């Protein structure tokens, strides 16, 4: 049976290398012309526990993972115990033949394929940890996927470790392919490579945001590790030398953001990647960037809180916090990309925006988007449209010819003051976290306070012109319009497709990737023809619903809220939409 949509899940204990082998296999499938969504699911521990990696494979572009599993690769018995119930009838499980399976773990409608995973890994590769590669080789064999694509990824990933390591992995993968041969007759699903397909890319939201930021001129990244934001710091650290960037793993998040403010004040494009707990520590300094009008970018890959919450899972519950964080009032941008493409695009655009408006920007991702790998077309990241615009930054010549004393906080109509960088004899001033006169000197004088608050506040009018309108998907008119923001776009897009395939005109969606300033007019226009509206979001209190009501006065017809730490899936959403 030729299958157009197949999910493989590899499971085992933490420490078995599931995430890297899952990512490697996803890349091999992408090279083989297939579309992939690869999602790790793990606990906050380095050894033990139960981890798994799900790889959904399709022949057409995809935006989400999905629920039914066709093939489980069980590196331990616990994996069978947990996932046997998720397997579609006719699916299968590859497991280590050394394990004796109790009868209650067996299902008559699922194929059980014992393969000596540990023994073959030791025999062919010399190390039992290579059984994940063996299992993936077996999976390739079972679904009829050409293993040469796996070989190419093994060569790329292990090449720097020397020929011996590469050869051992190749032998192990090949042994897996061969070991699966006897079971092919008992497993109906096939997903062969599509060698005629054009080359494509596979990346996750963290990668995409980091790529966008680098392309947009970000050259200073300071952070304290926190799941799931840390990979952005890893990415920049790995590329720092080649692309001329400075990264600093700081002593804490407070240091990280203050370092970024120092770097941005002297002219570097700077950002701090973190998660919600880290941003909580950055709140006071967010206000410092606001009052000193320092352009910095804060990236929060959300996870469920409060406090430590569910460290390795997903949620969208930091939005109103990000929007209001800090004492006092100042303008800020708040973006929430929905896809890797938007993560890249916002990743570079945001550095222009913070310099144009000299104020901080906050970018909200979440675990699902940040770590979920997705295959996209080779041109999906549009490097060609990237530009670098530093806003009202005074040039060397302008500073040379400056006649009057320089006023860093000059009151202007747009609220934006021409910006000098420290280091020019004609622009010697002190910026301050206190309220200040136009020249930066501290003041508590009432009229100047009003003038400076108003000046900063006026930036919002310009900022509102810069933000994108919400994106519509699906038929122009539908029975229900689903409103969403951030990473919910992917699963909801597929849910809309499924609903309309079942019955035309059932649903469409409106996705918001800019939350502040809020695109009020565009929202009103987009919702003018909406019949029934349902907000879909990953939190308990309906934060987007509150935001929508605040800006448009609209109440919605229903809500789908998920806060169990798991991401939305198309299956879940289709069922919920019908319920609501």
């Amino acid at each position, binding site marked *: 049976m030729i299958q157009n949509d197949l999910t493989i899940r590899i499971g085992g204990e933490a420490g078995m290398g599931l995430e890297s082998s899952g990512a490697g296999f996803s890349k091999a499938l992408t*090279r083989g012309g297939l579309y992939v969504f690869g999602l790790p699911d793990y606990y906050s521990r380095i050894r033990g526990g139960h981890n798994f990696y799900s790889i959904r494979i399709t022949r057409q572009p995809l935006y989400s993972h999905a629920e039914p599993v066709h093939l489980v690769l069980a590196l331990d018995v616990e994996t069978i115990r947990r996932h046997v119930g998720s397997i579609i009838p006719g699916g299968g499980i590859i497991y280590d033949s050394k394990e004796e399976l109790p009868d209650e773990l067996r299902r008559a409608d699922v194929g059980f394929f014992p393969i000596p995973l540990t023994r073959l890994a030791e025999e062919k590769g010399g190390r039992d940890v290579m059984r994940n590669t063996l299992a993936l080789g077996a999976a390739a064999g079972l679904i009829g996927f050409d293993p040469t694509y796996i070989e190419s990824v093994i060569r790329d990933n292990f090449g720097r470790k020397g020929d011996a390591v590469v050869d051992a992995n190749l032998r192990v993968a090949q042994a897996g392919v061969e070991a699966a041969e006897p079971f092919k007759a008992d497993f109906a699903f096939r997903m062969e490579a599509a060698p005629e397909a054009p*080359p494509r*890319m*596979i*990346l996750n939201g963290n*990668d995409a945001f980091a790529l966008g930021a*680098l*392309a947009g*001129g970000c*050259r*200073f990244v300071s952070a304290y590790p926190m799941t799931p934001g840390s990979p952005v710091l890893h990415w920049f650290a790995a590329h*720092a*030398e080649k692309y*001329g*960037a*400075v990264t*600093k793993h*700081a*002593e*804490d998040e*407070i*240091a*990280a953001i*203050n*370092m970024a*403010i*120092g*770097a*941005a*004040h*002297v*002219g*570097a*494009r*700077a950002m701090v990647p973190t998660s919600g707990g880290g941003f909580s520590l950055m709140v*006071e*300094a967010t206000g*410092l960037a606001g009052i*000193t009008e320092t352009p910095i970018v804060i990236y929060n890959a959300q996870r469920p809180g409060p406090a430590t919450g569910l460290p390795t899972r997903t949620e969208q519950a930091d939005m109103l916090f990000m929007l209001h964080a800090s004492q006092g009032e100042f303008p800020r941008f708040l973006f929430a990309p929905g896809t890797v493409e938007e993560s890249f695009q916002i990743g570079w655009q945001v550095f222009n925006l913070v310099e144009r408006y000299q104020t901080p920007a906050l970018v909200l991702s979440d675990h699902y988007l940040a770590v979920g790998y997705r295959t996209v077309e*080779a041109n999906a990241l549009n*490097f060609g449209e*990237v*530009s*670098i615009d*530093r806003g009202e930054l005074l040039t060397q010549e302008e500073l040379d010819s400056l006649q009057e004393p320089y006023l860093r906080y000059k009151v202007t109509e747009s609220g934006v003051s021409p910006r000098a*960088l*420290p*280091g*020019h*004899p004609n*622009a*010697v*001033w*002190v*910026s*301050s*976290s*206190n309220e200040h006169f136009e020249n930066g*000197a*501290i003041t508590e004088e009432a009229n100047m306070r009003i003038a400076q608050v108003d000046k900063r506040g006026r930036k919002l009018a310009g900022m509102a012109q810069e933000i994108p309108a919400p994106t519509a998907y699906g038929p122009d008119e539908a029975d229900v319009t689903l409103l969403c923001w951030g990473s919910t776009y992917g699963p909801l897009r597929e849910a809309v497709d499924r609903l309309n395939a079942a019955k035309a005109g059932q649903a469409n969606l409106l996705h918001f990737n800019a939350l502040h300033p809020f695109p009020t007019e565009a929202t009103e226009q987009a919702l003018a023809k909406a019949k029934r509206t349902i907000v879909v979001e990953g939190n308990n209190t309906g934060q987007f619903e509150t935001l929508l009501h605040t800006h448009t006065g609209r109440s919605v017809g229903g809500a789908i809220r998920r806060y169990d730490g798991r991401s939305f899936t198309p299956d879940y959403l289709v069922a919920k939409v019908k319920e609501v």
Partner: protein
Amino acid sequence: MLTRQDFEGQERPTWCPGCGNHAILNAVKMALAEKNIAPHEALIITGIGCGSKLPHYMKVTGFQGLHGRTVAVATGAHLANHGLRVMTVHGDGDGYGEGLAHFLNAARRNINIVDVVQDNRIYGLTKGQYSPTSEHGKRTPTSPEGAADWPVQPLAMAITAGATFVSRGYSGELKHLAWLIGEALAHPGYALVDVLQPCVTFNRGYAYDFYNERVYKLEDEEEYDPTDKATAWKRALEWGDRIPIGVFYRTELPTYGDQIPALRAGPLVQQPLKTLQPRQVESLRAEIM
């Protein structure tokens, strides 16, 4: 040649008459002039506290941030533009209380900044609470029965943390203080200048007469060797009838910035900021294909 007058500001200090900050302000100006660092070539980062208003009272480029985060801002500013001479000026609450972690981390990283701490052993701007360097038993509004905390030992801590220049000045010894700050400015790496500073309003027990009787200069002792870490550490803890000032410890190590590949081509902000070249884009794409 620059002089102190090149650093004269337009605003008059709001510090109390007799406050040690007046001398620290003069010493900073004298040291910058002596080292020929013009107002636009220095960047003074301060925090919150009476003394952190210092750059507002002189002509210099400055940034006054949050309480306690001064060294972190300075670290970022220095790494992004090491063409500027970055100096912090902040109080003991800022540097050794809320900012203690940043202080120790800057020391162990050998970040090339001058860290001037106005150490009056009391909170001035918030009106007289005990500070990290207040003595045990100090009675203040937040320690009415006498402080149960023992004071931090900034010099010994800096030496232990790996600082490459550790010194203490006294605001009653202006020339010596200006010299010390000058030495710190000339030092490649993290340089601590802890300054004994009377607060004439909230800490009268540590006024000029207290220090004048006790302070002596390490530079007056011919046998004192500031490259000997163990001796320096012992001397850093000396406090009583005799209180040492001067350079306690100095050594040279590669600075943090020296070790960053991206900074070999010059200050980060002076490197051209352009969109990626086609071959760079191809290389980045290849990583994810």
